[in-house]
């Protein structure tokens, strides 16, 4: 088989393929807790894939790690409180909400927004698409002066 030079981003996609495969296995065997953590890992890898450059991770790794950590901590707590108070009114509530529900909404919902979506605007000018990136793109496509 021909040796193929795969970029760093390509390698991350391949790792994600392995994660997706195991997601399929855990889904079909109802290993929902494992599926849950793999879901967070896959989504984090997708985020890194989109946020990184071809061979440079830059802040993408921090965005991905943040999402994975937030997701993993939150679903661990969600699973814990769901199991602890299953079928009964919880021993304590937060603003009237079941503690597991409160972690799901609003905690995880708001926390994931920061690295998952807000970070795009914060990183845009200095990482995602700088002026130099734009000039380089115009140069590579022969569109300098036109765009």
């Amino acid at each position, binding site marked *: 088989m021909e040796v*193929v030079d795969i*970029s760093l*981003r*390509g390698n991350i*996609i*391949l790792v994600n393929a392995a994660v997706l*495969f195991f*997601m*399929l296995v855990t*889904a*079909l065997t*109802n290993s*929902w*807790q494992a*599926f*849950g953590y793999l*879901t967070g890992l*896959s*989504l984090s890898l*997708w*985020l890194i*894939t*989109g*946020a990184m*450059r*071809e061979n440079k991770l830059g802040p993408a790794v921090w965005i991905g790690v943040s999402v994975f950590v937030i997701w993993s901590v939150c679903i661990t707590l*969600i699973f814990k*409180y*769901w199991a602890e*108070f299953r079928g009964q*009114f*919880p021993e304590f*509530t937060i*603003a*009237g*909400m*079941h503690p*597991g*529900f409160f*972690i*799901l*909404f609003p905690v995880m919902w*708001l926390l*994931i*927004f920061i690295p*998952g*979506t*807000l970070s*795009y*605007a914060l990183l*845009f000018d200095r990482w*995602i*698409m700088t002026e130099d*990136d*734009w000039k380089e*793109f115009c140069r*590579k*496509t022969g*569109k300098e002066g036109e*765009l």
Partner: protein
Amino acid sequence: MSAPITIAIVIGYFVLTFAIGVYALKRVKTAEHYFGAHKLFGTVITSIAAFASIMSGFGFIGGPGLVYALGATSLWITLAAPLGFGLGWFLIGKRVKLISEVRPIATLPDIAAARFKSEAVRALLAISLVLGVIAYLGTQVMAGGYVVSGLLGVNLEVAILIIFGITMIYTSIAGMAASILTDFFQGLVMLIAAVGVLIMALIMTGGTEGLFTTIGQKDPTLIDPLGRGTWMLVLMWYFVFTIGGVGQPHLATKFYALRSYKDLKWGALISGGSYMLSSLLWIFVGYAALWLVIGGKIPALTKPDQAAIAFLSQMPVWMVAIVYAGLLAAIMSTASGFISIGTAALVRDLPKSFGKEVEHDRQVWWGRVVTILLTVFALIFGYFGKYLVAILGALGWGYFASATLPLLAIGLNWKRATREGAIASLSLALVLNIGFLIYEKVLGMKMPYAIPSYGISIIVALLAMIVISMFTKGAAEEDLDPDIRAAIEA
């Protein structure tokens, strides 16, 4: 029939929407403007339009109904937004925008064909889009008709003609430009409705303390983080509705409508933030309806989908009017986007893929004709289709995601992704979705552990793209066109 003020506000909404849609014609100068609103709008309009087209009528009626019936189960769909919109911008926003800067892009098949240098990919994607569009529109016909019929006191057939006639006319006149501009207006209406509903729901129930305690003491399952569903269901839903957002054509098409690459910057925040705000309606209306029933203020609902209507029955008339306008906005914004996408696939992509391109200066004319034909066909299908609508209606979010996600999320980020991988993933997506449809809807079988079948389809399609690409070479690496390569490397 509703109160006079409700009717007046709804009619006012219809008139304004129509006027805005027709006004968009001023922007349409080329076929690319008509089919894709190519480089026509800035950040705010496009981002709000993106959120509006994603938030369909389901978020106003179906979602609260599921909360009423199942508790928190369905929330794992709508709570995916904070990550889903970001993923869309990160994974494909920049790349789609850059490609549209150097190519006359007006459709997703245009992008797919440019990336994979394949008219077969264009054709397969166009067919997939048309099938999904017709299936989706079919499900909206009766739903939209019943809403307008109840509001205006007209019969169902007239109601269907009103809501979809208006949508058809402005979309036919100004294509995607009309769709985006009206989506922007409709998005604002939805936001006002959502915020109003949230405030009223919390006032009515005494805040989250009163709301959840009342419900929880009657049935604790309804307030826990899972509800009556299964963990496999909710976790797969979260996955499907985050990553799946990237593959939704009505989101992806917005990127080439942006005027400049700089317009990408605030898009995810505006779009995602708007969706998060409007999803509060999904969450709180369902729970508020439960609170009303448990508290004996209204009788128990015979159907969960009545939850939103039951909640509105306790609201002031002006609030009801705004929410109904929001609901109509949600239905029409998604419908117009899909009509535009389906028309573009039929007029531009399918003929092109068979080597028979419609003359460029006739494309807009044909676009108008096909918009009308497509809408009429969808109306007939939706009205008479019944059993077939119920089956095909399941082709929705997951179907689109499994078709386009491999092409966009992988194809635009990985130079190693090949034409053969794209064709394989597209074909598998179609076969799997239709196969699961037959398995579940025709044969009446159930997926194990309540796994959403489209989750399986999405994962398998992604794997197919990656694995097949490792063993093939078409349109990969050195074979990429230089401008496509530059967009992927940027």
